[in-house]
């Protein structure tokens, strides 16, 4: 059967033919396989079950091209981050147009921990980076395959056993493009046993041009290790941001991922967590505040394959104008994964009649001694709450702002780092004032 390809698909296929990252034979084979997978599948559309509410094929008209690494200074980066975020003391890892820029980065994490640019790690065939592309348990989808086929940069980060980082790692993705551009990057984390690390992730743009990002983050979390990852995006309204976080948790590992999405064009944050060791726990939470025609999709799979593991998910979405949010959460409890404890909640607050929220929670349980629950709610600002605040002299606008803050606040409380939490709170406040 002959496939009818869209302009974007044709463009992506030709980009994948040009994209060649130096590396050993296994890498070339992996990329070739991935390219063939994408060619066979094409961009996901609404007939693909997991992409029912986010029709990438029709949303993505053309494929933007990647650009060479541009010039940027530390001052420019700090200006884009804003004083509040720039002031947080971190190990900054700066990715300029998808490439790790070692001059702008602080790659010395201490002890035996390492940061390598993905290009260098693959060119040298560094042994611990050979697990790249294998963290994933399920079949790759078209977007994940595309990332493998297109990846032109990123980093491999190894945190040594028992190493507790003295300050967070700040992943800063900066675009210098002066016109439309694309980036396909991959991050590979190997977190050692009993290590502790905090990760902040920001995406900024010097020229504020539309971009297409395809980012895959693979995380191997060692036994007893603790990871906290907070990601913040506020993309251009014509951008496409496709992110995958694929994690595998060791025994008693403690993993937290918080994703805050403000507006943007089309954003898909996909998360797949495999519980591989007993008594591991993960908290995958976040907030999305969407106005205009922003579309944000959060799709997650929590795959319990070990005993007594815990999963917690709490998402708060605020939708204005024609904003649209999608929540798809699947909790799988494999046979034998007894004593699994899973709780998933997704709540949306609609500020306009043209906003839309689609929620699809799923439980797939193959063990009998488990505690799993999920819920989803959609509502508007409660008139009684609003009247109460106004009856205390708080003007309408301010009262609404307080109630929105209260709504997202429950999720924001989950950000453990005080400075970072304050930063995200202030960003949400600014969003409301603008909306």
């Amino acid at each position: 059967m002959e496939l009818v390809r869209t302009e974007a698909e044709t463009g992506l296929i030709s980009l994948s033919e040009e994209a060649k990252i130096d590396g050993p034979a296994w890498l070339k084979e992996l990329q070739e396989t991935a390219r063939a997978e994408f060619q066979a599948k094409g961009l996901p559309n609404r007939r693909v079950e997991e992409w029912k509410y986010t029709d990438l094929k029709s949303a993505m008209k053309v494929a933007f091209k990647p650009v060479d690494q541009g010039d940027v200074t530390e001052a420019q980066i700090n200006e884009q981050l804003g004083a509040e975020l720039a002031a947080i003391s971190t190990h900054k890892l700066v990715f300029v147009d998808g490439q790790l820029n070692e001059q702008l980065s602080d790659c010395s994490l201490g002890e035996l921990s390492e940061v390598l640019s993905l290009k260098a790690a693959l060119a040298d065939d560094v042994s611990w980076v050979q697990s790249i592309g294998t963290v994933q348990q399920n079949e790759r989808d078209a977007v994940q395959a595309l990332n493998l086929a297109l990846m032109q940069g990123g980093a491999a980060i190894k945190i040594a056993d028992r190493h507790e980082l003295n300050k967070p790692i700040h992943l800063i993705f900066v675009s210098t493009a002066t016109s439309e551009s694309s980036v396909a990057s991959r991050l590979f984390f190997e977190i050692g046993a009993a290590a502790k690390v905090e990760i902040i992730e920001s995406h900024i743009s010097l020229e504020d041009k539309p971009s297409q990002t395809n980012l895959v983050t693979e995380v191997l979390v060692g036994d007893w290790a603790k990871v906290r990852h907070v990601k913040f995006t506020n993309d251009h309204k014509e951008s496409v941001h496709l992110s995958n976080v694929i994690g595998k948790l060791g025994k008693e590992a403690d993993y937290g991922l918080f994703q805050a999405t403000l507006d943007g064009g089309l954003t898909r944050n996909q998360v797949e967590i495999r519980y591989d060791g007993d008594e591991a726990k993960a908290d995958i939470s976040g907030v999305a505040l969407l106005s205009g025609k922003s579309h944000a999709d959060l799709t997650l799979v929590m795959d319990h394959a070990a005993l007594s593991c815990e999963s917690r998910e709490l998402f708060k979405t605020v939708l204005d104008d024609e904003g649209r949010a999608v929540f798809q959460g699947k909790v799988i409890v494999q046979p034998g994964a007894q004593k699994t404890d899973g709780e998933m909640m997704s709540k949306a607050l609609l500020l306009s009649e043209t906003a839309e929220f689609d929620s699809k929670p799923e439980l797939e349980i193959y063990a009998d001694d488990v505690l799993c629950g999920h819920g989803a709610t959609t509502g508007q600002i409660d008139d009684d709450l609003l009247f109460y605040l106004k009856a205390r002299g708080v003007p309408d606008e301010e009262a609404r702002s307080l109630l929105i803050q209260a709504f997202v606040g429950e999720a924001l409380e989950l950000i453990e780092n005080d400075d970072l939490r304050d930063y995200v709170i202030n960003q949400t406040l600014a969003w409301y004032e603008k909306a």
Partner: protein
Amino acid sequence: MLEIKNLHVEVEGQPILNGIDLVIPDGEVHAIMGPNGSGKSTLSYVIAGKEEYDITEGDILYNGESILEMDPAERVAAGLFLAFQYPIEIPGVATMTFLRTAINAVRKEREQDELSIPDMMKLIQGKAKDLGVKPEMLKRGLNVGFSGGEKKRMEILQMALLDPGMCILDETDSGLDIDALRIVSEGVNALRSENRSMLVITHYQRLLNYIVPDKVHVMTDGKIVRTGGKELALELEDAGYAEYDEELA
């Protein structure tokens, strides 16, 4: 001074208030008593500016000016305050943050300077102490997990902080045991002054032993059917409201 003139109010086409006339001069405390469903709470909401009520006739004047076109927040700035029968729980809004926001919003509208954070803390903590509101309550979500008595104390605290000229207390006694009733009433009595008037709405006479009114009005079927001194409350306590219902029948 609050003047209510021939006030007619409907909800979804259903008449609730049928011509209320009431004047509360500065410094006076009036009580409205009446059976359930007589329109007492509606009157309090209409004065506070809740939206779902249609005022079909009449007017409400505060210090000589009609308040009907003002939104609820403007009415508070003008000096009106309603203590709710059922204070609302707002999880995620810290009580202290809310109090600061409310006080500064009202001060701004009254063209007073906003208070600095230390001055604000001093003011709030001082008044909270007088009313026996524990410091940890100020850190919690507004009214979340508060007992009935704590919620009512929080209402009176807000009343004290917003410095109103006209206080409306809607069934402030409901859900209170005798000790809580005494504490809340003492808080209210401490706010009585020459230039502050009050309208106390209650079903039972009990509250009026503590907050002694200058006048008592009896309301049934959306109308004030009788007005008297404080002794009228005692009379109602003995005879109930049946007599007035018959009058209307």
